[in-house]
């Protein structure tokens, strides 16, 4: 079952303003039986002041659709038509302490009914909305197939990375990768048939590079699609920056002290426990040095950043196959001593 907030449950089980409004002078109707969602919003607007004096709803739909409709009426009663115009579906969702991503369309339906009712009151005409949504693809950001397909077509997207940049889909846990690949490949195929893109530009299912193994850091999905972005380059997958390796060498420079005299790393200085951890790690490395000496090499602590322990290998150990094995032993010992998982990584000393 859905993880509904208490407020959604409250507004479903005890909906406010449900039923018909006899003296309504503005009515908005959206949805349909075939969609499984429909809402009739009835407003009583004071023609003198433009204030919405009363609002009622009738909804065909699931729990969150009924709760969203009820929340909508609560939000707009007492507001002027001008104020009501500024209401967004996010306001409805926020009022209910959030909705599951699959259920955000319920709040959209509320906002659309309001737009329709306001239009009925002011006599405006509404643009037709085909309202194709399709299955929800990306659960992390609540992006459905219809929206992704529109983004692919409008912007002629041909790589997965660009789809993520434009729609956010796939930018979270990435478990929607396969359906996303299928959708991109299918849409591109249609676009080739329609002459919108060239066949060699089209994305072929299964053509994407494997996801990067290491955890991406500092990679933020933009909130808004970057509209002025240059046209996508078919064969240029976006390489996610990996600060882990890149940062290692420069960070090593200031603390290139020999492990024999364990100087606390600058980052660890203020917190006592972090400094203590460095001392412990250095002590273990010191104890292990004879093992490395036996093989004609040496090891020293360079730096410690979070769970990363950077060491410098010299002599026979550097580049030696055994080194990774020995470092594994070092890693286990330090992990045990600190009581949290760490990773020992050899870096070049500059």
């Amino acid at each position: 079952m859905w993880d509904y907030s208490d407020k959604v449950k409250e507004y479903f089980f005890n909906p406010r303003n449900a039923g018909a409004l006899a003296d309504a002078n503005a009515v908005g109707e959206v949805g349909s039986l075939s969609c499984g969602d429909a809402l009739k919003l009835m407003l009583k607007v004071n023609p003198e002041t433009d204030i919405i004096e009363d609002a009622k709803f009738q909804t065909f739909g699931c729990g969150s659709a009924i709760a969203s409709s009820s929340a909508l009426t609560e939000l707009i009663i007492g507001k002027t038509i001008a104020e009501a115009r500024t209401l967004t579906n996010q306001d409805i969702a926020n009022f209910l302490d959030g909705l599951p991503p699959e259920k955000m369309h319920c709040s959209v339906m509320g906002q659309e009914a309001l737009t329709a009712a306001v239009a009925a009151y002011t006599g405006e005409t509404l643009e037709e909305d085909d309202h194709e949504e399709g299955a929800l693809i990306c659960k992390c950001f609540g992006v459905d197939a219809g929206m992704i397909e529109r983004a692919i077509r409008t912007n002629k997207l041909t790589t997965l990375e660009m789809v993520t940049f434009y729609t956010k889909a796939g930018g979270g846990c990435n478990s929607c990768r396969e359906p996303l690949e299928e959708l991109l490949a299918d849409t591109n195929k249609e676009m080739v048939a329609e002459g919108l893109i060239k066949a060699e530009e089209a994305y072929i299912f299964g053509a994407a590079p494997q996801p990067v193994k290491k955890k991406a850091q500092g990679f933020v999905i933009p909130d808004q699609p970057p509209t002025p972005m240059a046209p996508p380059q078919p064969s240029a997958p976006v390489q996610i920056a990996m600060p882990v390796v890149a940062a290692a060498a420069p960070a090593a420079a200031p603390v290139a002290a020999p492990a024999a005299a364990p100087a606390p790393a600058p980052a660890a200085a203020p917190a006592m426990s972090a400094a203590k951890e460095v001392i412990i790690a250095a002590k273990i490395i010191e104890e292990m040095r004879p093992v490395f000496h036996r093989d004609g090499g040496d090891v020293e602590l360079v730096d410690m950043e979070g769970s990363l322990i950077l060491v410098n290998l010299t002599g026979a150990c550097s580049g030696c196959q055994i080194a990774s094995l020995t470092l594994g032993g070092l890693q286990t010992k330090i992990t045990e001593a600190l009581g949290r998982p760490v990773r020992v990584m050899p870096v070049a000393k500059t």
Partner: protein
Amino acid sequence: MKDTLPPVYLDNNATTRVFPEVVEAMLPYFTEQFGNASSIHAFGSEVGGALRQARKSLQRLIGAEFDHEIIFTSGGTESNNTAIRSALQVQPGRNEVITSMVEHPAILSLCDWLEKHEDVVVHRIPVDSQGRLDIDAYRAALSDKVAVVSFMWANNETGTIFPVDGLAELAHEHGALFHTDAVQAVGKVPIDLKTTEIDMLSLSSHKFHGPKGLGALYLRKGTRFRPLMRGGHQERGRRAGTENAPAIIGLGRAADMTLATMADDSARMTALRDRLEQGLVQQIGHCFVTGDPRDRLPNTATVAFEFIEGEAILLKLNQAGIAASSGSACTSGSLEPSHVLRAMDIPFTAAHGAIRFSLSRETTDADVDRVLAVMPEIISGLREMSPFWSDDGAKPEGFNPEYA
């Protein structure tokens, strides 16, 4: 008052309560006889003996001629995937699959994949408004290009039963293998595979009070086979991976218990189900029972309530301590209502409001009374809120939304 009453569980087609006797049978195999059945020592051989007993119990439940026709798997989905893929691989030159439009996703989404990515031609046979297979369409689709026919024994949503033994004979006339997804049928209706021409059958333990995470594939002796999983020699080299011994032993116990009382249980469930359906239809207008009234599972009642949406009904039922399920779109997160009800051409007005009550042998008269007591108010309350409803009844014409 609702807090003091025990919950009513009527979602047994989703999963069932594991019988306490089953749990009891399983427990020693976690901590005492925990050996690997493949091992030579006593720990292993004792487990091996218990596994043989369990296999025999399941053999009796499905009426297989030989116990080695049973391959234990991780569940119905794995059995289905194994069966279809194997059938395609062992028959080069045959690249077509016949199935129905109302199968479980374990078959349908596999077929979609095979069609799209592996050059397999898939025929999806339609059903009529009661969920019965279009036999003429099936005959027309059969040819010597068909590698495998896969029809479910009983439908999970409506309980409608397909005449699988006859369908298997038709498949064999064209040299095609026949597989049936019997996940909902095993344990609920008598099955005697040795008297049929069915080549492969999938079943799942947790649908008849066994543990989850275990199923089996029945593979008729002499049927050519390619394993899905490769590795060790378990299950005579047909399904690699250490046997899930406690679960298999639990399944064996559940099979024994189910078989022992099946005839009585079936009669009692049928009576309860009929009383439930009749009570709902009599008390509540604008609703109807789906499925084939003459041939369906004894435990399944799917009633479609017009002009309201299923999830809302389920939430209200849950509040009243009653667990059921729905073919509604909103419970699954997609926007389309149940593919089964749509294939039966049930109108959208009702498909969205379809509620499935699935009974077990533990369901009581009191459970049915509870449902009958709360449903009229739940339905009328939601209908009052529906724009498609007015005091004098349904009025879908009176509502003209901006888009459709």
